[in-house]
């Protein structure tokens, strides 16, 4: 037998359920543009029906008892999250690679006239001018000047590249700090989420925050995420565990003061940390591959050139009939310089092969070095051309990879938005819906009230 006030409770349940739904709709609308927010939905279930066997069998089966807003869940696709994190990792890595390569291209400045290639051209030409006037001091002085200018250009580019490397090391430091800070925050939230889930709750907003941190971590260092059944997550760098419910790692970065080399290690074990992807991977690749390679290539080119040039120069004679002098002081790219005595006394330039002033065969021999295989088995122009070609190709490839990664990230982002994003039109529609239901429930309560009124006040008088 049903209680007299049964209807009131039923109406009341309807009222608060719709109210809860309106609250959630309001929450969605308020967070329409919150980063990382997933829209939430109230799950309404019919409350447990009345219906036990008794002597008075109730016709029609169980009696419904109304509704309960049993849970609020967020709409999120974990698979899309996983794909997004992969895309972010890839994008972050290639954006960093591309950025540094473009900086290198800017320093190298080819094709251009004020570049290393241009300075070499002027040097070879002024050498040829000396061959036309081997006795002439002015031509020799011009040669020494262009050689000094060549050294300046090379040294400047070398220094600029080293500077890029140094700034990159600083950026790596900052990024590592960001990673560490994110991991700390992640650990705390991870624990909170797991505790809440253990109590049977849906900590939707906490989970949104956690996902946002995971996205950030993926961009920074290319992590992958495993969702545990307890509600917590385990974060991996490749196959290494970086964070779980009971432990968290930190990363240490150190710079070798002599070489400028950067090394990343696990703070706990001291072992090497190799980022699986993300900005850190890109920055490390640029720092330990791209920059040392091009700097090393320039150094090889310059020191081979200087050594060969000096060797031939030593065999020749200056205007004073003295032989055995070096044209360049010892050094390489970064420390390249014309020998002090050449700078002070251009007549020492060994243009002659015999000591006679009008003999230019010494200079002709120096000029012929340009087309001989003096750097790693190829002529210097070819070697330099190969450096530029490698740089250009690499940069172009990196740009292509960035475009591809960006495209994928954007596609996944849009799909994620499609699943989890708030549609204001939709929420407004829901508002109407729940508002009507609320109004109807209120009307129902009024009706029940009138029934009770009739029962209590107007029956049996």
């Amino acid at each position, binding site marked *: 037998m049903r209680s007299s006030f049964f209807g009131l409770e039923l109406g009341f349940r309807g009222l608060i359920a719709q109210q809860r739904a309106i609250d959630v709709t309001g929450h969605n609308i308020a967070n*329409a*543009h919150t980063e990382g927010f997933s829209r939430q939905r109230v799950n309404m279930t019919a409350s447990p029906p009345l219906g036990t066997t008794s002597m008075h069998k109730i016709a029609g089966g169980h009696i419904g008892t109304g509704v309960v807003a049993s849970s609020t869940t967020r709409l999120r696709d974990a698979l899309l999250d996983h794909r997004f994190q992969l895309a972010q990792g890839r994008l972050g890595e290639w954006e960093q690679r591309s950025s540094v*390569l*473009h900086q290198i*291209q*800017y320093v*190298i400045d*080819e*094709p251009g006239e004020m570049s290393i*290639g*241009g300075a070499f*051209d002027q040097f*070879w*030409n002024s050498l*040829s*001018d000396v*061959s*036309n*006037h081997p*006795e002439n001091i002015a031509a020799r002085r011009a040669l020494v000047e262009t050689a000094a200018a060549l050294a300046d250009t090379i040294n400047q580019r070398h220094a600029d590249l080293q500077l890029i490397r140094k700034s990159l090391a600083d950026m790596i430091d900052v990024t590592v700090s960001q990673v560490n800070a994110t991991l700390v925050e992640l650990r705390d939230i991870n624990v909170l989420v797991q505790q809440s889930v253990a109590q049977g709750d849906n900590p939707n907003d906490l989970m949104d925050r956690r996902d946002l941190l995971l996205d950030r971590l993926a961009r920074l260092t290319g992590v992958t995420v495993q969702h545990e059944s307890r509600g917590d997550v385990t974060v991996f760098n490749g196959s290494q565990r970086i964070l779980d419910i009971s432990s968290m790692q930190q990363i240490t970065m150190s710079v070798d003061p002599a070489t400028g080399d950067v090394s990343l290690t696990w703070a706990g074990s001291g072992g090497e940390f190799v980022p699986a992807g993300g900005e850190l991977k890109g920055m490390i690749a640029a720092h330990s591959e791209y920059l040392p390679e091009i700097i090393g290539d320039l150094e090889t080119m310059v020191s081979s050139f200087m050594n060969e040039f000096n060797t031939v120069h030593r065999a020749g004679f200056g205007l004073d009939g003295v032989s055995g002098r070096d044209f360049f002081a010892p050094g390489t790219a970064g420390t390249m310089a014309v020998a002090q005595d050449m700078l002070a006394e251009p007549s020492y330039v060994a243009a*002659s092969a*015999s000591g*006679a*002033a*009008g*003999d*230019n*065969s010494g200079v*002709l021999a120096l*000029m012929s070095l340009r*087309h001989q295989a003096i750097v790693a088995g190829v002529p210097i*122009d070819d070697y*330099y*051309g190969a450096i*530029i*070609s490698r*740089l*250009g*190709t690499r*940069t*172009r490839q990196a*740009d292509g990879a960035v475009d591809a990664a960006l495209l994928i990230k*954007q596609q996944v*982002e*849009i799909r994620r*938005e*499609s*699943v989890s*994003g*708030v*549609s*204001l*039109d*939709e929420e*407004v*529609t829901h508002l*109407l819906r729940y508002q009507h239901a609320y109004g109807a429930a209120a009307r129902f309560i009024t009706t029940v009230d009138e029934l009770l009124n009739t029962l209590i006040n107007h029956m049996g008088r």
Partner: protein
Amino acid sequence: MRVTSGMLTMGFTQRLHERGKVLWDAYDEVSSGRKVNRPSDDPASTVRILQLQRLLSEREQFERNIAESRLWLELTDSALERLGDAVIRGRELAVAGASSTLPLESRLALAAEVDQLFEHVIQVGNSNLAERYLFAGHNTLARPYVITGLNEYDFSGDGGEVVRQISRDTTLAVGIDGARVVSPVLDALADLAAAVRAGDSAGINATLLPQVEQALDELLAARAEVGARGNRLERSQESLLSSKLSLTSQLSDRQDADFAESIMRLRLAEAGYQGALTATSRVLQQTLLDYLR
């Protein structure tokens, strides 16, 4: 697929960025006038451009070297011409001195003229281009011919070949050794003066006239050589010019943007960008709230 306003804004932002990138690239090309502004724009072209730039620069230098060489050759040639005139005069004097019927005064007068001719040839032998002596071989800074007495001289040239680089694999000798063309003339003149003073008309006929002829032959041969080298330089210069034209045009092909094409691309990019903006503005403005009540 569910479409949210967030998706719309995302999509629009992405499209605007894409269109903006196209606009930027088009602008880059128009404002720089270059198709290749950095190696990554076109790595293969960049390498070719660098090669062409090197080749052009080399050729410009060779042009300078050729101009220098022509100067040297021209001066040498004019010196040889004056030398030729002197030898011809010397031959006339020798023929006159070969006559056995010359009185003493005439002989002395003749010998004095030979002395004068000797000094003149010394001067020609010391021809120089801005104090670099043409006939001194590699000892260009010192006067090769120094008078040490009446019809006596010292020669300090070393016979070294003066060469200039006129192309990547070619050097050209631009000088003539004084010992080959000037010294024989001086020797002949010295001998002639002595013979005339001694009245040795038989000796003049027998050995001096042939000696002078030989000097003249050598001179003519040297002039022919100089002429041939001059022609060669001229041909090299022409070939350099046409090579430069070809290289310059290739370089421009690779490097320079076709202005008309670039402007057109810029216009298209602008239109594309505006299209994206228009589409965005039309769709973003409508919501359900506009239509309720």
